[in-house]
């Protein structure tokens, strides 16, 4: 008999941490701006998951309402970020993030 493993909040926290680490790691090692962008999204969603988990654990709806804000901010960020990336890739289809270093001091 397989004992059903009880899914505790810790699982969600670990999942969030793992997702965040993947996102951060991907952001650091990949050069494709689109992939880097998706990594950022992954990190955002990892944080969102953590918020919801804590909200459930502490029985405080504050964490869940934060999620709504994060979604809105993420949406706005997607609009701006994607626009920049599309404009960049249209000009130079094989551009990497390291090629756009014009803002060097």
């Amino acid at each position, binding site marked *: 008999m397989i004992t059903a493993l009880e899914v505790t909040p810790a699982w969600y926290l670990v999942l969030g941490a793992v997702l965040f680490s993947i996102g951060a790691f991907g952001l*650091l090692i990949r050069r494709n701006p689109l992939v*880097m962008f998706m990594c950022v999204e992954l990190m955002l969603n990892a944080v969102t998951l953590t918020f919801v988990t804590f909200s459930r654990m502490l029985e405080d709806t504050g964490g869940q309402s934060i999620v709504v804000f994060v979604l809105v901010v993420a949406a706005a960020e997607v609009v701006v970020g994607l626009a920049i990336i599309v404009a960049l890739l249209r000009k130079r289809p094989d551009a990497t*993030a*390291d090629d756009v270093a014009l803002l060097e*001091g």
Partner: protein
Amino acid sequence: MLDAVWLIPALPLAGFVLLLVFGRLLGDPGAGWLATAMAAASFVATVVVFFGLLGEAEEDRHFVQILFEWIPVGDLRVDVGFLADPLSITMALFVTGVGSLIHLYAIGYMHGDPDFPKFFVYMNLFIFSMLMLVLGNNLVLTFLGWEGVGACSYFLVSFWFTDEANAAAGKKAFITNRIGDWGFMLAIFLAFAAAGTVDYLELFQATEGLAAVTVTAIGALLFVGAVGKSAQIPLYIWLPDAMAGPTPVSALIHAATMVTAGVFLMTRVNPILAAGYDWVPDVIAWTGAITALVAATIAIAQNDIKKVLAYSTVSQLGYMFLAVGVGAYVAAIFHMVTHAFFKALLFLGAGSVIHGVGDEQDMRRMGGLRKYMPITAATFIVGWLSIAGVPPLSGFWSKDEILLSAWASPGAQGKVLWAIGLVTALITAFYMSRQVYLVFFGDERWKEGEEHAPIEAEAEAGAEPAPEAAGANPGDGHGGVHGEPHESPWIMTLPLVVLSVLAFVGGGLNLPFTEDMHFLQRWLEPVVGENELHIDVSTATKVGLAVVAVLAALVGIGAATMVYLRRRARAVEPAVLAHAYYFDETVSAFVAGPGTRSFDAVAWFDAHIIDGAVNGVAHVVAGAGRRLRSVQSGFVRSYALGVATGVVVVLGYFLTRITF
């Protein structure tokens, strides 16, 4: 009738504004007539207020009219308000009265000057400022007028500014006055800090509750201001140079009105002087006495017709401070009024002479002018006898009052002050007689080839290098070589005649014979009150003192007659006197030498230390920025790494501090 007090300064102000806008349009002489009309209207308003005040009972003779709140800041409240009391109305009467006459005279004197309207703009502004000074009911408003007359003095001294010397004289007057104004300002600050008010009447009431040292400091600082404005030692050096201005300016500002502002201020704040320590009045008396004597001796050896009068003014102002110092405020004001009459008369007479002989100011090139300028000569002689102290002219009465007060003041000090005053009176009679003889009597030295009288030969060598800040200016319109000296037009002689009548009978203001004839003393009683010196001297002593004073005057006149008219003795005019004891040169040398070097040092400190510190900070910031900017590589992933590293570090820090 008292409500008309605001009109007194408002009319010259209106004249100033009108002339500022329409002056060029009115031109010569229209602008002059407008200015004269405004000054005269102001005089009428003053007379109206005077009679209003006269109608009040003696103890009610002060009227305050608040026009509006000027500076309301926290506890500080300064109103634009006028205080009409016997003192301020006395001042306003002779400021506007003598001022109107001088305005009238100036129409003739300034005729043909390209800047004719501008002259009258300044003149009306001056009258307005002087009236604000006199009528203001608080120290700040008085200070406004004080600075206003200073600015007008500057404008008018350097009126013919295209000549470098005139512009320099204006600057000198302005800067020297700043030293005095510094004292005045500190006095205002101290009065407000200590008493919480700058209003005269409130301040006088508050003095009782203040520490004696505070009141003394306020009085002493106000005296510093008075020393600057009234040209007393050591700040008198600007007044002789101020003669560079047109002669009506010398008469109005530098003889009759502005320079007496210091005496007025001391009289106005007599409760403060009385409440402080005794050394302040003593210092005032000694400053006045020494100034009177020193300036009189300098006047002996001056050859510029206006410089003699300038040093004479300094000397007479010294008399007034001597009177203020011994507590004889009435005598000071009395002498101020008579001095306004006879000194304005003398200056205007000198202007008429300068006008008549074609812009010549050197008395060595005059002589025998009484035949050519009879009215000027006659009126000038009245002024001469008046200032010399010959009875029954006005100068005798007022000067005698001061000498009597000095004699009657307590202690041996009073006798010494009296002696100094007497010697000064003798010298005054001497140098004024010298001037009259050199200008109106003797040889006609203005003719070609007779430029220098032999009698002057020794003084000449010393006098030549002296800075001749001459008021004569080629651009003033009535220049040019005249064939013969001529009498001035009626518009200039009429004020001379009026002033000579005033200088003759002015003594009637305060005759010493009976109590009833002390008109000025009873009139000023509410202002000076119990602070006035009580003269407790027998009639015999009074008569004796008067006789001695008259004898001194006659000796002075007689000596001058011997030397300059009869030529029985050689003139003694040492170079040290012609150079005014080299005081001016010493000041110049000091400022030019160590003074300039110390200012250079300050400038170096500013350029290298102060600016160095400021620029050094900028250099450090710029250098740090130059090094730090390499961090901004432009690589997004480097930034991300930086952020990630930062997060890890922060997290690590918190983890080490965590406690379970």
